[in-house]
């Protein structure tokens, strides 16, 4: 291929998606920042530069409480999902045999059916008239209060929503992992704990971190699950943002909250990505080139 042709192809294949993302992904985020420095009065935008929204966020304790609650929720959900994902993914890769593909694709069905529909399904399980309490009532036991309209209900819902994503990521990482390395360590006399802690875990750490982040970031901004299942003490940060853009019409404040959320997500992403080597995630399959 000639040099000029190569440059033309680069332009075609790399620059079109890049331009698309810059216009429709980066530019909106900049617009969000701009909006966060304006004001909303009576459902109208006032285009005057002010930092009032950020002052409100810093001084109003409610927003801080929502944020901390979301943060803890996101940490618990993501850590729990990663801990559960490892044995599942490991089992599929090691013992799945010819059912590997079926088992991994079955994870996609609950993931793809959408947040709203999955929440409807969960409500059918957990709600006051749901299956769990229905069974308990039939057995003559008292209904479980903690799974109705509480933070634990939100926790269960968020695990339900994002567990498939984490399992898939860890699975892809383990799938691209060369298990002969573990056999080699075993032949050299390492016990199973040592093989895991010195070979399997570190070499799949990048994929695990990606899985953790793909769960952590959406749960940090979860809006639908707490609104539907969280009850009176379950207001989370993302839900509060949705309210600013919805009922209360205070878009500028909502934009400021969005900017804070975005910056915090980027901070977490930055800190964790120090531990990520994209070539080892197995997610892009680029390690085998």
């Amino acid at each position: 291929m000639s040099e000029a042709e190569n440059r033309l192809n680069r332009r075609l294949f790399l620059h079109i998606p890049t331009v698309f993302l810059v216009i429709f992904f980066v530019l909106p985020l900049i617009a969000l920042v701009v909006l966060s420095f304006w004001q909303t009065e009576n459902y109208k935008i006032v285009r005057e530069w002010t930092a009032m929204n950020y002052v409100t966020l810093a001084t109003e304790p409610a927003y801080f409480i929502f944020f901390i609650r979301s943060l803890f929720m996101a940490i618990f959900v993501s850590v729990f999902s990663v801990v559960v994902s490892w044995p599942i993914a490991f089992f599929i890769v090691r013992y799945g045999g010819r059912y590997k593909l079926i088992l991994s694709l079955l994870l996609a069905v609950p993931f793809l059916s959408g947040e709203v529909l999955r929440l409807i399904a969960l409500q059918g399980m957990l709600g006051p008239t749901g299956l769990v309490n229905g069974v308990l009532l039939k057995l003559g036991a008292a209904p479980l209060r903690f799974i109705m309209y509480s933070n634990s209900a939100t926790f269960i819902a968020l695990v339900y929503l994002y567990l498939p994503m984490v399992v898939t990521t860890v699975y892809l990482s383990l799938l691209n992992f060369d298990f002969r390395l573990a056999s080699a360590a075993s032949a050299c006399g390492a016990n199973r704990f040592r093989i895991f802690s010195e070979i399997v875990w570190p070499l799949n750490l990048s994929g695990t971190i990606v899985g953790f982040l793909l769960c952590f970031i959406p749960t940090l901004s979860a809006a639908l699950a707490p609104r539907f299942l969280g009850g009176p003490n379950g207001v989370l940060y993302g839900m509060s943002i949705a309210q600013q853009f919805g009922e209360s019409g205070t878009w500028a404040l909502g934009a400021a909250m969005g900017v804070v959320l975005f910056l915090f997500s980027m901070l977490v992403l930055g800190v964790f990505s120090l531990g990520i080597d994209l070539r080892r995630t197995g997610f892009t399959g680029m390690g085998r080139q």
Partner: protein
Amino acid sequence: MYAQASNERLTKWLMGAILVVAYAFLYMPIVHILFASLSSRPNFPYPPEFDYGSYIRLYTNTVYQDAFLNSLIIATCTSILSTVLGFLATVGVLRFGGRNALLYAAFFAGPLFVSEILLGISSMSLYYLVFELQGNMVTAIIANSVHCFSFCFLIMAALLYRYDWRMNEAAVVCGASPARAFYEVMLPLTWSGILGSLIVAFVLSLNGLDISFYLLGATPTMPSVAWGALRYGVKPELYALSSIINILVFAAIAVLYLVARSDRKQQVE
């Protein structure tokens, strides 16, 4: 030695048990609402019965019909747009990326790490509040495409990294135009990745609420109507709608499975 072997078996069974519990956790709600939608007693539909009342009510409800049509348009356009862009990005990164391949890959995967609600409100800020544009289907399609683009890119990159680019060059050397090389050499070999990306993007944008919700204003989509109906309590119609979508998703995944399996057979041959 014997102790270690039994230990290993114990670990295997323990992991298998966790897998079974997790799959049960993921599928029990779906199966439960399928039974509930088919029952005249949706709260506790056991033993199962077969009553199609909720499906008939869903079918005759025009609100759901409009919403479903809108969602179908958004999902179709989004899946095509994001797959085309994702294909360009995949080829770009894998073939023309050079030293910056990882940088481009990280940028293309970026929307995955920005939550849907942020994508929704930031696009809304740009269109409504800065340019004062009314919400329409086009903006919703574009915003959904940004989100689905990353999924398409990763799916196709994962399936295309084994592709041997010399085949395209060979075709060109033999006198084929680049377009013909694409249609006759590349497309037959990579269509499973393209199909997978189309299906995933279609289903994701069909069912996603957050992005379309902020960009469409009053235009109803299937998830937004379902969400609105939720406020007045869960009705059996919603269970029926949910079950239909779940069955569709299941069918799409089954297609993917068959395609992937026939692909693998071809490789073995």
